[in-house]
């Protein structure tokens, strides 16, 4: 029940602020709304029992990415967005997306008040605790996904080298 009390307001915040991000005229307001969405997503990770992912989400998306975006806004003097004209294929994408969002919201409301029968997977199968998660993540990084981990390190190195070389 506590999870439900945290989940529904957080979900509402995510939905409202993500829509505000897109609709905001000033790019700075978009960025502020996006920060709220990223922070709330971190809370969702916490509810899912992934504390480590929540911390990473908050530090990278809650702090580092907004700083990067804010610097980009400052350097490029981007203030307002021109009014987007919705024509052609865009119109159909928006209509389909709107229908999907409305259907999803109706479904979310229906399962929130128990109108629909209990779906399968309604309870988590794993009994989580933070020590098991840290253990599993470090074990996964250095055994099962070692190659991916090393490849990703190389990718990060290439990005850092490329950007610093081009920034000269």
């Amino acid at each position, binding site marked *: 029940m506590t999870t439900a009390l945290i989940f529904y307001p957080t979900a509402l915040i995510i939905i409202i602020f993500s829509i505000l991000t897109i609709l905001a005229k000033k790019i700075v307001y978009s960025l502020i709304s996006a920060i709220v969405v990223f922070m709330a997503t971190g809370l969702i990770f916490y509810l899912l029992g992934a504390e480590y992912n929540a911390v990473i989400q908050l530090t990278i998306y809650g702090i580092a990415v907004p700083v990067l975006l804010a610097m980009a806004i400052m350097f490029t003097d981007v203030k307002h967005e021109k009014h987007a004209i919705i024509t052609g294929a865009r119109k159909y994408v928006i209509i389909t997306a709107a229908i999907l969002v409305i259907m999803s919201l109706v479904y979310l409301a229906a399962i929130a008040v128990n109108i629909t029968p209990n779906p399968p*997977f309604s309870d988590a199968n794993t009994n989580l605790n933070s020590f098991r998660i840290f253990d599993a993540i470090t074990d996964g990084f250095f055994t099962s996904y070692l190659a991916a981990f090393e490849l990703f390190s190389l990718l990060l190195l290439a990005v850092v080298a490329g950007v610093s070389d081009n920034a000269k």
Partner: protein
Amino acid sequence: MLSNIGIYHYLTLALILFITGLCGVVLSKNVIKILISIEFMLAAVNINFTTFGLYCKNLAFDGYIFALFYIAIGAVELAIGLYIFYAMYREKQTSDIEDYGDV
């Protein structure tokens, strides 16, 4: 009375966030807003990974690890995207995506 939270709650939330991000990519003309929308889509996928990691026994903690990789890849993608944007901005002095057609 509110029901207990299950897998479908998280998946529905992720779907809505993904669609919102998709709409942002399609609708926005500002490059920075498009990058933010892409990050929304990445966050939605991360919620899915973590949800399946929690609820599906055969995945164990793999979903969590994939989500961590994906967060890092998202940050790299944003850094590269912003660099490309800055390089194009120096060329065109505008952040409107439609002015970048000939670059």
